């Protein structure tokens, strides 16, 4: 199986595992609807022709109008009700499958290796993810359901014709399958390259637009903003060329299907007349066959959209499939010897895809209750050391042991959710009293009390905006809810003004109590709360000083004042 098909099969398995009954039922309903539509047209033609013949002869009185008329009514109702049911079932199943897909993708991306890639280029990967979910959305609704409808009508019509004449039925079936499936297959093949070009073109255009907006000042000062707009226009032209190629393919497919339908109709006209002349069938039957040919090819026209969607869906499936496998989680760090919170022995840490180690043969012991500051230039390895102690990375060599820790990341992330649910991420079982207690400890109780909706206030785009200081305090309250013996703090007061920063630090230290603290910092005020300062340089520990030693004051003085 080609990698394309394997990826598609993985996605289909996920679909089927989630709502097998509904997905198959929806396709069957689509088939039923299409069959009823074709039957309606064919039966009407037969009815009118038979009525005309009966009207000409004396048989008019004996002609039973009620059976065919009832059949027409039944088919019309079946078609209307079938379409309604099909739409409901297929949409419900798709939404359910996509809910599951989103959850699976989230878990897949949460694996450390994937999360690292995501952190490296978030905008691009998240953009891709959105496009991919939309493309997979179309896979079932636009490709599989129309395919089921078209195939069942093609086969059903062939069987019906087979009752009359085997040779005609065989020729009919071969033509319908060859043209109805072969032409879309050719289109899918032809669309593969432009679909890739389009996916690439969208990303290029997006990157250039982001550069034009985010880099406006730089470009303007360099006299290049108009040039950047021209670059965006060039990306749009490339995208337009791919769009145009895809539209040409889709239009040609539609035209080829329509031409095939016209040829089939003409052929059936001649065949019907021939059969009728040989008295193999009567005229009403000839009318039925003709209208059946007209109706049977109609559902294949719906495959034109599906053919271009399939290309996107395959790209999406190939990109998302690796994230669907259950993630491999690194084992949590071992527990250190009693009295120690962290112990590293010649531990080396390497980021995947980089040449040198981020931390090389680091030896470190942090006692229970110790407060340790990590200082050093940006890129020296401070954040890596924090991530390693938090259990985010496994050592490539050496040993790492640490008690359970909570990492307060440099950037405060608040989610588009209520204030309460943002807090309860840290402690799912916490009641409002405990949440308010944590907010009070972070100095945010008055602010929350003043909000009209209190803890139910929604944060994020549609909700209330928080200042940088308030957001940091909220992150702090969240940390306070985590009852781990070790807190890892990455530049906890960066970006706050002096007064706010000192208040936040004081509250942090008060709340920490006997916990072990490891603080990565380049600010004097943050390092000053530590009992030991460790200088990290080039992935190694380059020096250490305890409070009271002369090196301690020197290390503090080397840091930035407020």
């Amino acid at each position, binding site marked *: 199986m080609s990698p394309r098909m394997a990826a598609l099969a993985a996605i289909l398995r996920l679909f089927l595992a989630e709502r097998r009954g509904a997905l198959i039922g929806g396709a069957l309903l689509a088939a039923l609807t299409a069959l009823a539509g074709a039957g309606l047209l064919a039966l009407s033609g037969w009815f009118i022709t038979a009525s005309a013949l009966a009207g000409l002869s004396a048989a008019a009185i004996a002609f039973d109008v009620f059976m065919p008329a009832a059949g027409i009514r039944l088919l019309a109702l079946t078609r209307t009700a079938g*379409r309604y049911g099909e739409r409901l079932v297929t949409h419900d199943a798709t939404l359910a499958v996509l809910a599951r897909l989103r959850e699976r993708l989230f878990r897949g991306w949460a694996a450390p290796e994937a999360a690292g890639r995501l952190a490296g280029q978030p905008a691009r990967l998240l953009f891709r993810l959105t496009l991919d979910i939309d493309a997979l959305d179309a896979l079932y609704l636009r490709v599989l359901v129309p395919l089921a409808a078209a195939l069942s009508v093609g086969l059903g019509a062939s069987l019906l014709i087979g009752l009359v004449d085997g040779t005609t039925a065989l020729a009919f079936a071969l033509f319908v399958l060859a043209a109805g499936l072969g032409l879309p297959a050719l289109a899918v093949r032809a669309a593969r390259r432009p679909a890739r070009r389009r996916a690439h073109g969208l990303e290029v255009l997006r990157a250039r637009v982001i550069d*034009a907006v985010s880099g*406006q000042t730089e470009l303007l000062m360099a006299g290049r903003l108009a040039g950047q707009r021209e670059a965006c*226009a060039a990306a749009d032209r490339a995208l337009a060329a791919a769009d145009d190629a895809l539209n040409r393919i889709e239009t040609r497919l539609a035209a080829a299907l329509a031409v095939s339908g016209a040829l089939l109709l003409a052929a059936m*006209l*001649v065949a019907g007349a021939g059969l009728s002349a040989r008295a193999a069938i009567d005229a009403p039957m000839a009318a039925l066959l003709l209208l059946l040919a007209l109706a049977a090819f109609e559902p294949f026209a719906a495959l034109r959209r599906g053919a271009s969607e399939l290309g996107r869906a395959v790209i999406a499936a190939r990109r998302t499939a690796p994230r669907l496998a259950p993630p491999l989680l690194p084992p949590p760090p071992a527990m250190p010897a009693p009295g120690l919170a962290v112990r590293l022995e010649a531990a080396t840490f390497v980021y995947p895809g980089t040449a040198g180690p981020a931390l090389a043969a680091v030896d470190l012991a942090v006692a229970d209750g110790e407060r340790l500051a990590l200082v050093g*230039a940006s890129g020296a390895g401070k954040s890596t050391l924090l991530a390693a102690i938090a259990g*985010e990375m496994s050592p490539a060599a050496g040993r790492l042991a640490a008690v359970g820790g909570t990492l307060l990341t440099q950037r405060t992330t608040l989610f588009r959710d209520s204030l309460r649910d943002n807090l309860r991420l840290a402690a799912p079982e916490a009641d409002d009293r405990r949440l308010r207690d944590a907010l009070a400890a972070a100095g945010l109780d008055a602010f929350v009390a003043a909000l009209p909706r209190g803890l139910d206030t929604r944060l994020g785009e549609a909700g209330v905006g928080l200042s940088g200081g308030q957001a940091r305090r909220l992150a702090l309250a969240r940390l306070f809810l985590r009852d781990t013996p070790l807190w890892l703090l990455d530049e906890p007061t960066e970006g706050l003004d002096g007064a706010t920063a000192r208040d936040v630090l004081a509250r942090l230290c008060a709340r920490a109590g006997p916990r072990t603290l490891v603080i990565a910092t380049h600010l004097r005020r943050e390092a000053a709360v530590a009992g030991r300062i460790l200088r990290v340089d080039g992935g190694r520990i380059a020096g250490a000083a305890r409070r009271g030693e002369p090196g301690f004051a020197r290390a503090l003085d080397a840091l930035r004042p407020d």
Partner: protein
Amino acid sequence: MRRAPRIAPEAAMADLRPAAVVQAAAALLWLPQAALLAFAVGGIAAGQGAADMLMPAAAVAGFGILRALLDAAGSRLAFRMARQRLSALRANALEALARRSPLDAARPPSGLAASVVVEQAEAVVPHLARFQPARWRAAVVPLAILVAVLPVSWTAALILAAAAPLIPLFMALVGWRAKAVSAAQLVELGSLNGALLDRLRGLATLRTLGAVDAAACRLRAEAESLRRRTMAVLRIAFLSSAVLELFSALGVAMVAVYVGFSLLGVIDFGHWGQPLDLGRGLFILLLAPAFFEPLRELAAAWHERAAGEAALSALAALGAAGPQIQGSDAGAAPAPAGAPAVRLEAVRLRHAGQAEAVFDGLSLHIAAGEHVALLAPSGGGKSSLLALIAGLVAADAGGILIGGEPLTQESAARLRARMAHIAQRPHIFAGTLAGNVRLGRPEVDLAAARRALGAARLDAVAAARGAAPIGEGGHGLSGGEALRLAVARLAAAPHAGLILADEPTAHLDGATAREVADALFRLARGRTLILATHDPALAARAHRIIRLSPGLKEAAA
């Protein structure tokens, strides 16, 4: 205040008229095809054989092929027009965005701008290419079919015409359905994708809080609850479209009953003296569904209209009125070298939506070649002052002179060519490190970019990264590296006699901050430097310190 020219939807429709006419003509070719088929069946009933059918069959095929080709030509035409319109709309939106001042608080962030200009704008093409021609067909094709049926049977025409007053009812149903569907879809897509992306952005936080599993379950629960709510809306929406279909089936069935009973001889009215025969009867029957078909197509295209119009208004909103940059964004020929003096006279600036002016009557004079530090706490107006001098925003009153030349709409681009700017958080462009220094400036070649990287002590990083992309689509730079990149951009602009630096060391550790400051003052030798900072140590290195305080009238020099 200028506004980006907006493209009126009426103009877009006028462009699409030829395509709509061709597609309507293709739809009308069904008339001769139906007539041929109907009378051929009449012939078969009268005992004609296969040989007699060759001519009608060839004609049916011929009309069918012609119809397919015409329809293809029409839809290609419509697509090309619509796609060109999309390109024009994107260019207009970007032009409008480029004009908005970076100080405009309402200026959309890059993520939002990109999702409107790139993803949402895509909805314009199906809207124009499918909906507009479908609307045309819905207006023309039913009328033509009525005209074709009338000479055969006035009763059948009457039945169809009687269905015509139902059309506005159809349209109301369609509109109702479409509104509900698109509203449901917007809710569904907006919140589901938004929630997923939101959680993924905060993955690091979720992992450290041990909340990955809880967040995954919550995502699932949110999606499930949204599914239930969406389905409640869809149940009604689909019901109304089923009603629409039932109506059209009813119209066809009435025609069929009339034709059938006429042929049986039970009914003998509704024709013009000549009773219906099989051929005429079948002809009417084949046309009846085609009478309703354009309406159903229009209904199918309706939600594309909703998405398309939402995209059009989102694109227009990107260029909303607000503070604008001064002058053109096209740049200008490198200006005369040399360090200019800068003079501000009674300048007043007030941000939109704020009662208090940032400055009122601010005057200050900076000599050519002088190094001046603007010292103020955050929010003290330092960045606004630099933006005023760079023409990134227009003053409400007062005058600014650069090298003796007043800063105006006409002179802004030329005067900017004499300046270089270092931002607090420099933007890193998608591309290579060297490309990030050149920024597409023709006068900065690769060798110059390499020298500039060396001057900013980025040569080692450049050697390690090579041609690997950085910025969006590549791995980023650390804060210190980004600032050094900004220094390299400065080093690559030797003709810029005026350097504006906006808190260049605010987020750096001590060692890197010193290094960046050293490079800045080294490059500023012989040029005018205006440095905004809240770091007293950095400010002390300038020739002169100017303290700004919020809402100040006059700077204490």
